[in-house]
């Protein structure tokens, strides 16, 4: 086990989640105050902590240490839950609510109701989610860790679509490597060097790729070599393995032959678990052994140094702004007593620099609730909300193909992520789901109900039929690019408040035609692939669902990807963006907004790796900022 400051890398200091009182935190001035203990917040905290700064993290979630007992309580709640959605491991918390996909339905603006956290008033509603517990959305993410394509950074220039980034692939490349080390990415360069993605000579990923599942190989037999014509270009498809932030076989050639030591389960004592994926096929929401990265692995390192502290059950409610110089003067938060009580005490903490890392929707919500749009020159806070649009297609293969084996998703088709067709329609990646039709139909539970209640099967027959049916299920999930659109928004509305009186996020999100053109193409492609595989197409779309979208006379269901981004996009000047390329606020000198909200586009890669790379990059800038602003404090241990 690799040592970190003389202790195990994965030891979470016992009591760290509760030992700093809110009152203590509110005394004096911290070097940095971070809102949110998820992936971005943990990375920034750890980096600033390493640089010797005194850092305070405010976390809205429950005040429990990240120990194995807590993690296992999440797991056992998940195992016992009837509906196993992304949030099912977590206890209901009225004081820091989170959206649940199962809650999704439009709220009538004339008769407002407070049943759900995410307020939506349109006919189309997104069932997207993010998680508000210590560790943030890394406590439910799947663990795919794709880089963005070089062309994703220049969409406007290349294809006259979307927005350019103020950064390019090469600017971010070194930070991608840092993120791949921190998250522990398993992949091979030979698989990932496509559509212009490049790596420094000799680079290898920390761990070898996860093997393609038998299902992937089955699909590959039909797909590999398949040709697709699109906008005058021909593309050849193949099944490719995805890079994953999940422990595999370490690559001995990593870091010039030093190798890589996988980071296992986090706890307050040495547990030695999760150094390898065991193929539980239960990656989402939680890996049973913590072989999948979650930001507790970074947070544990950060908290152990002693100069990084955390206050939990602390919901940031207002960013205090000095009216004279527009600088942030403090963060006001509500420290609630328990999940079962709405009692709270309000405190304000001060720092030399403030970093909002609460994810796209919460960062925007907090700033809007603090009246910061009035001070914004771009007026873009909460605008350009993005998420990947997912179109699900599913079919029944002629033979058992091992569905339910392997991790949730090991391979897919990535050849249509980029290309000239993006001038007119969205690119997409295709996930081959090793967990069957679950996402689309509720399988295997729905299969069971069908076989028992409708077909009257039991005993051996039931077991055989169920096994045979499920192991033939093929779900292709198309993850479709969705460009920034000012009218996709997060706002706040005085009518909608949570238990602590904080304004809830109101979301208005529509799927643009550019994306739907990609979806329509994806639907046709799925038909072709099913035909090649001899699979029976079982896809149906419900036009009465909240997720129904009509495009050229056809109805589709577009579901959320939980890849929320874009509510405080980065750009080249204060008029076209909320932050600069370093995620530094244009309007408030001592404020950074670090997270996917800064991304001006999301391309066709799951956002976490890029967000992590951006967090590393910004952390380096914040260190420079702090160095200029003040001499580092002496850290007493």
């Amino acid at each position, binding site marked *: 086990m690799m040592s970190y400051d003389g202790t195990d890398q994965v030891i979470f200091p016992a009591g760290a989640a509760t030992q700093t009182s809110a009152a203590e935190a509110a005394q004096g001035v911290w070097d940095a105050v971070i809102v949110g203990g998820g992936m971005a917040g943990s990375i920034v905290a750890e980096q600033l902590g390493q640089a010797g700064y005194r850092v305070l993290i405010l976390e809205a979630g429950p005040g429990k240490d990240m*120990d*194995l007992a807590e993690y296992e309580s999440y797991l056992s709640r998940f195992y016992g839950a009837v509906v196993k959605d992304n949030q099912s491991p977590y206890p209901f918390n009225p004081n820091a609510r989170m959206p649940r996909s199962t809650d999704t339905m439009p709220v009538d603006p004339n008769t407002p109701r407070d049943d759900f956290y995410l307020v939506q008033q349109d006919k189309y509603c997104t069932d997207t989610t993010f998680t508000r517990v210590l560790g943030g959305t890394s406590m439910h993410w799947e663990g795919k860790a794709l880089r963005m394509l070089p062309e994703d950074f220049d969409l406007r220039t290349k294809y006259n679509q979307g927005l350019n980034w103020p950064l390019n692939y090469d600017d971010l490349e070194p930070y991608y490597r840092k993120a791949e080390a921190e998250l522990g990415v398993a992949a091979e360069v030979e698989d990932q060097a496509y559509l212009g993605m490049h790596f420094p000579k000799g680079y290898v990923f920390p761990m070898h790729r996860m093997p393609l599942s038998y299902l992937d190989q089955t699909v590959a037999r039909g797909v590999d070599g398949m040709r697709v014509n699109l906008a005058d270009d021909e593309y050849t498809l193949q099944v490719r393995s995805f890079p994953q932030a999940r422990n595999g076989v370490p690559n001995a050639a990593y870091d010039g032959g030093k190798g890589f030591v996988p980071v296992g389960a986090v706890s307050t*004592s040495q547990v*030695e*678990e999760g*150094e390898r994926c065991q193929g539980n096929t239960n990656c989402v929401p939680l890996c049973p052994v913590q072989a999948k990265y979650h930001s507790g692995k970074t947070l544990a390192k950060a908290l152990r140094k002693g100069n990084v502290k955390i206050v939990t059950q602390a919901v940031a409610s207002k960013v205090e702004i000095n009216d004279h110089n527009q600088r942030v003067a403090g963060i006001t938060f509500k420290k609630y007593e328990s999940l079962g009580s709405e009692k709270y005490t309000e405190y304000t903490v001060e720092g030399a620099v403030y970093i909002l890392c609460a994810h796209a929707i919460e960062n925007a919500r907090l700033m809007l609730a603090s009246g910061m749009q009035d001070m914004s020159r771009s007026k873009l806070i909460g605008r350009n909300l993005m998420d990947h649009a997912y179109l699900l297609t599913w079919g029944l293969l002629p033979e058992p193909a091992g569905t339910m084996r392997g991790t949730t998703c090991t391979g897919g088709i990535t050849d249509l992520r980029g290309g000239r067709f993006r001038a007119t329609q969205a690119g997409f990646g295709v996930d081959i789901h090793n967990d069957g039709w679950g996402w689309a139909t509720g399988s295997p539970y729905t299969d069971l109900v069908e076989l028992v209640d409708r077909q009257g099967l039991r005993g051996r027959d039931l077991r055989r039929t169920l096994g045979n049916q499920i192991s033939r299920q093929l779900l292709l999930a198309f993850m479709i690019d969705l460009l920034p659109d000012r009218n996709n928004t997060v706002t706040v509305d005085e009518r909608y408040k949570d238990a602590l009186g904080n304004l809830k996020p109101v979301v208005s999100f529509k799927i643009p035609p550019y994306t739907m053109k990609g979806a329509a193409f994806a639907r046709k492609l799925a038909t072709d692939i099913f035909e090649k595989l001899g699979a029976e197409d079982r896809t149906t779309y419900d036009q009465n669902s909240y997720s129904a979208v009509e495009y050229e006379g056809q109805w589709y269901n577009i579901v959320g990807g939980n890849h929320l981004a874009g509510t405080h996009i980065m750009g080249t000047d204060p008029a076209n963006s909320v932050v600069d390329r370093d995620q530094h606020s244009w309007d408030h000198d001592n404020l950074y907004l670090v997270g996917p909200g800064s991304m001006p586009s999301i391309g066709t890669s799951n956002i976490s790796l890029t967000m992590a790379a951006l967090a590393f990059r910004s952390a380096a800038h914040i260190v420079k900022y702090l160095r200029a602003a003040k001499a580092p404090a002496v850290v007493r241990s």
Partner: protein
Amino acid sequence: MSVSESEPAPDPKIKTIEELYDYLYKGLQLEHATLPPYLTALYSLRPGTNSDARHVIRVVAVEEMLHLTLVANVLNAVGGKPDLTKPGFVPNYPTRLPCGPDYFDVHLRPFSREALDTFLKIEKPPEAATEQDRFVPMDWAALGLTSDGAPPPPEKLAQLEESGTLFGLVPGEPSKRFASIGEFYEEIIRGINHLEDQARQAGKTIFTGDPARQVTPEYFYSGGGDVIEVTGRDSAVAALTLVAEQGEGLYGGIYDSQDELAHYYRFQQLEKGRYYQKGDEPNEPSGPILHVDWDAVYPVKPDIKMVDLSRDPEILAAAAEFNQFYATFLTNINLAYNGQPDLLLKAVWEMFRMRDSMNRLVRNPLTGHAGKNAGPTFEL
């Protein structure tokens, strides 16, 4: 190791490469022999309870697999061939391990204070103070194996030596035995040094094994501790030292050379109700509190045998299936140690099957054994 290196090394017991193979085979047998007791205790814990105990036992069990692999690597490196499929390789429990002047019995038992006590004994053999203390006279009468204390007749002795139910015997010297397992490994290290010195004088080496037979780190599903690829004397000594010290800690400390909490102290945490943390002294853990629920355990009948299941045909069939599975599992591990290391990756999910199979057995009460449940018999 327990005896200081400054003492003059006496004549090593291992004088030929064949003797070294024999010792290393016994090492394999010994490392494996702890697995069934650990697994039985582990899976006797009621699901959803005793998380702390579960993780502690699980880590030690995984590391016993590591030890098995390390010994196999040494054996392969010196040109031997591991064989986990020989008759008698798996003990007919209870088996006996040496502990200073006494032997102690190792039973297949559900998790309990007695089981924990045995585990502590397994992992921390008493240290020999002097060269003479490394061996103790063999009291055959005390073990009930002969009436007069003299060694059994050669045929019976050979059978006992092969059976895996009596560890620590000094091959060829039935009147004495090693004081502890640590001394047994110390003897192997001395033997390797002796044989390698001899070989080098003749311009040769004993490390003639095919490197492709080594299990390298990428093939071992680590639970803590890393596989050492054995290519020569230094790596062989490092591997065997890790096997010996991972149980009891290094230089009297609570951690081993790979910064893993030693097995003895892992188990002791369950006794003390507290986790160790960095900087702690032996016997004084100061980390987070842990909880053991001694009652949340299936009452598996100790040292259960197939004959105990005769009145429960369905359990009998499940137990037979388990034993068959276990035999296949050992066969696969054996193939992994004989040139197909990638088979170890498959062993990961085979362990899940084993868990499911054991879970099924331990939930079932036995007919005619009031208050006792079934369990795996490990009769192959």
